[in-house]
């Protein structure tokens, strides 16, 4: 089978994946939607989610159109320097690049939309199924999550394969990836701001001031809180992993395209072959995710992930034995996927209450919130170590096995990233399951479904939290390897345009770039978290106003105005995105055009290093504080209402924007900055001040 045929196999795999996603969607829709009350509650969440998505996609469509036009204009010309003064301008492929950008954005949006669409239907059905058995509820919620996972990888594989098949140019697939990443960044950051605005405001007024429990329908922000679970963790995470998945493949494709004539096609197609194998492995692995009544959903999700990995590695081995791929590529991809899974489970160590970090943070909470913060933050810093060591090991092994097989080492690193992300279908399915069961629990509570249903939903929810922690560690590490490959791809693109790139720390211009790059992730994080506090402040005032003006809300004789809080969260999230978006897209271009390609290389290096460190710290510290609070709520160190609990609540509130707003957006930030640099590298190579 020649390598072009593999592209058709990829398209077939993508179509099959989407077909299964559609089948599962309709299977979910055929399940019992539950009582009138439950459906009413679900309709509030669905309405809120639709309102936000409509506003988000309207804003993003405008942005995509503007960027598409800019890209079309800029890439309508090819620029080439002659000597030191002359520039040749030739007609370029601006329309193709703009079309690829728009298709990438559309695919990313479609993946997020499908995930949201099924999530807001599956939540109430999961709650209803939980009235009958845990087994039914788990199957329904996981299959609903699989709709997002399979649709996402299907769209990505089809998009990349078709574009490469039609254009034969890896640079066009870069446009596709840039479109996907730009949308993912805004969807993830916007969703993160939305969800934490609602969560913090609902908790601070509802739980702390008024004393009403979680998910109580008397809280005006309860619907916004449940909508936030969907927009942050379903649409946002779906778009985020879509972006990493595509970016990792594109990075390797660009590196493959830089190979000598005769080798280019094969090595450009190989990442797509890996993605195709991962798609089939995910389709098979999903079949193994089942739980018996009384069983542990978390174990079942982990079993599905490990079986998917085994299938993927076995398929890789077969291709290696058939000489479709070299042994070096097999080992690079295998080390990537194994490292990804290990890093994921290591993250679990720092956020699971069965282990020391959470238990110790809970214990010291008896001495007050300051010690809670210091301890959680310190464990968050320590949690960086295993992930970074994992990335180091994966980087070195994949580099040297590639070199040992006569391939450029950096190509091996890229393949490790693709290997890590190749089973994204399974990973995203497990991740999207989390917010669905979280919502199901909320609906069960709000619809008064009874204690047994809520207890089952709690069991499902607990597994969802673990899956979420594993996915975060996995996606951040994958992004680290991806951007390393993108970094190399950037250098290759600059070289291909006649400049010999020199990223040496002995050059002041490079040091300037490194420092500017290093400050970007912290600044980006600060902007997002300040948006959360600013918006939460507005929403807190609104909730207080409603309780003040309508005493009947607390007495249960009057309904709160849920729409006001939903509208505030949506407006606040979208209006906060302008500056972060500029940092991601505009700052690399300014650095590139003003300080030059070498400084831009340093800029990317600085951003990658602080971005990965901050992302790991924030994701793990936030998860740790959250679970320390939950650990105390199980009756440890005084239980709910104790001084330890009050301190842990402070830690959890600080950790909320860490783990759900800034942390998960950082890997998308560094991916977008790397992509925009690679995309504009041919122009920056010609036009720069220094």
């Amino acid at each position, binding site marked *: 089978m020649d390598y072009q045929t593999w592209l058709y196999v990829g398209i077939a795999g993508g179509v099959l994946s989407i077909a299964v996603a559609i089948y599962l969607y309709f299977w979910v829709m055929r399940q019992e939607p539950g009582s009138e009350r439950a459906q009413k509650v679900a309709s509030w969440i669905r309405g809120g989610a639709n309102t936000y998505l409509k506003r988000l996609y309207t804003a993003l469509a405008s942005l995509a159109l503007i960027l598409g036009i800019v890209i079309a204009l800029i890439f309508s010309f090819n620029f080439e320097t002659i000597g030191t003064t002359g520039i040749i301008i030739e007609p370029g492929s601006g329309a193709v690049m703009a079309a690829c950008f728009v298709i990438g954005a559309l695919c990313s949006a479609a993946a997020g939309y499908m995930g949201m669409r099924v999530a807001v239907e599956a939540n109430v059905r999961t709650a209803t199924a939980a009235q009958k058995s845990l087994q039914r509820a788990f199957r329904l919620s996981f299959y609903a999550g699989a709709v997002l996972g399979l649709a996402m990888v299907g769209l990505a594989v089809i998009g990349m394969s078709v574009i490469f098949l039609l254009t034969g140019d890896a640079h066009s697939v870069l446009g596709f990836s840039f479109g996907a990443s730009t949308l993912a960044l805004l969807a993830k950051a916007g969703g993160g701001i939305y969800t934490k605005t609602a969560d913090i405001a609902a908790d601070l007024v509802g739980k702390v001031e008024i*004393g*009403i429990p979680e998910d109580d329908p008397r809280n005006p922000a309860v619907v916004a809180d449940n909508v936030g679970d969907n927009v942050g963790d379903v649409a946002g995470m779906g778009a985020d992993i879509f972006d990493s998945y595509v970016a990792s493949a594109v990075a390797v494709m660009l590196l493959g395209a830089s190979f000598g004539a005769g080798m280019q096609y094969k090595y450009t197609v190989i990442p797509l072959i890996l993605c195709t194998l991962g798609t089939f492995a995910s389709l098979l692995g999903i079949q193994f995710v089942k739980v018996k009544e009384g069983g542990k959903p978390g174990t079942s999700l982990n079993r599905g992930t490990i079986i998917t990995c085994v299938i993927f590695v076995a398929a890789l081995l077969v291709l290696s034995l058939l000489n479709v791929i070299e042994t070096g590529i097999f080992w690079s991809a295998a080390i990537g996927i194994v490292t990804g899974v290990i890093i994921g489970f290591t993250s679990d160590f720092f956020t699971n209450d069965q282990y020391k970090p959470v238990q110790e943070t809970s214990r010291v909470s008896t001495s007050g919130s300051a010690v809670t913060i210091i301890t959680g933050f310190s464990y968050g810093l320590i949690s960086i170590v295993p992930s970074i060591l994992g990335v180091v090991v994966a980087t070195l092994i994949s580099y040297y096995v590639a070199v040992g097989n006569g391939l450029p080492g950096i190509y091996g690193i890229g393949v490790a990233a693709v290997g890590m992300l190749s089973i994204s279908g399974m990973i995203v399915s497990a991740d999207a399951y989390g917010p669905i069961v979280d919502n199901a629990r909320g609906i069960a509570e709000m619809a008064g479904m009874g204690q047994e249903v809520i207890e089952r939903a709690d069991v499902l929810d607990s597994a969802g939290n673990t899956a979420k922690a594993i996915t975060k560690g996995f996606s951040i590490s994958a992004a680290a390897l991806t951007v390393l490959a993108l970094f190399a791809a950037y250098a290759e693109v600059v070289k291909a345009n006649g400049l010999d790139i020199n990223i040496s720390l002995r050059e002041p211009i490079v040091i300037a770039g490194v420092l500017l790059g290093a400050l970007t992730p912290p600044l980006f994080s600060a902007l997002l978290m300040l948006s959360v506090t600013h918006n939460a402040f507005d929403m807190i005032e609104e909730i207080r106003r409603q309780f003040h003006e309508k005493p009947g809300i607390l007495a249960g004789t009057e309904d709160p105005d849920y729409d006001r809080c939903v509208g505030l969260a949506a407006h606040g999230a979208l209006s906060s995105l302008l500056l972060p978006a500029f940092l991601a897209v505009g700052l690399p271009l300014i650095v590139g055009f003003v300080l030059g390609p070498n400084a831009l290389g340093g800029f990317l290096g600085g951003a990658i290093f602080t971005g990965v460190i901050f992302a790991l710290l924030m994701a793990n510290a936030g998860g740790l504080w959250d679970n320390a609070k939950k650990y105390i709520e199980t009756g440890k160190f005084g239980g709910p209402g104790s001084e330890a609990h009050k301190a842990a609540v402070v830690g959890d509130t600080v950790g909320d924007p860490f783990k759900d707003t800034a942390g998960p957006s950082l890997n998308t930030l560094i991916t977008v900055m790397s992509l925009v640099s690679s995309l504009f590298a041919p122009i920056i190579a010609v036009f720069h001040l220094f």
Partner: protein
Amino acid sequence: MESHFYLSLLPEALIVSMLNPEEFGTYYAVGSSKKSRGQAMFFEVDPGYRHEYFHIDEALKRCVPHEDGRPKSSIYVSVYRVLEHIDPDALLDLHLTTQDGRTLALKASKTLPENESGLHLYQEIVPVTPLVVSRLDPLSFFDLIVKNPTSLISVPAIAFAELQLGELANDPEMGMLNNLPYSNPDHLRQCLSDVKTKFVSTKMVDRTHSPVIPYRTIKNGFFVGNSEKLRYYPMPSAETLRSENYRWFRSASM
């Protein structure tokens, strides 16, 4: 509309209201336009009960619906030395309302709780509010405070609750606090050690401890009585509350 009598413990007051106990609990806990809020504990009092200390009939005359037809929420009859002027036999159900307005009714029991070994922790609620540790079981404690005081300190009537001590009841020094949210646990341990090892039967942990009790910490239940009678209102187990009164249980577990 029917009028109800309520003996509120937080604060001590006799109130006439047109609201039934659940409505009154919600009104009392989450407030009205006046915005008074918080946990509430109150007995429903036999509507036929009269005592010369209270101007009940005058209050009843004032307890009429509002002009728009809404029932009258509260007419305060008395806010001073109320409990001592009420016959314990006139007390009907005890209602416990959470701070978000969910109400649980407790019925009086004819039998007192079985005596258990170990130390005890009592939260006095009316008329004064100290937190006290003791070697005495609830009946002996009541006897000491109301009927047969051995010191100058006594009260004519009392309402108190016994709180859980968990492992501290038998091992104040090393026992685990686990799910008990008491502040300043070292001081509590010291007080328990004192009553265990020294020649004192009771010791005050906190002179004016807030009588707002996390309901989940109540051990046996509530005790109310005067020199003539003692009534006991047992608290259902957490399991019973969870299965039969889930919403109240959830609010009370905050």
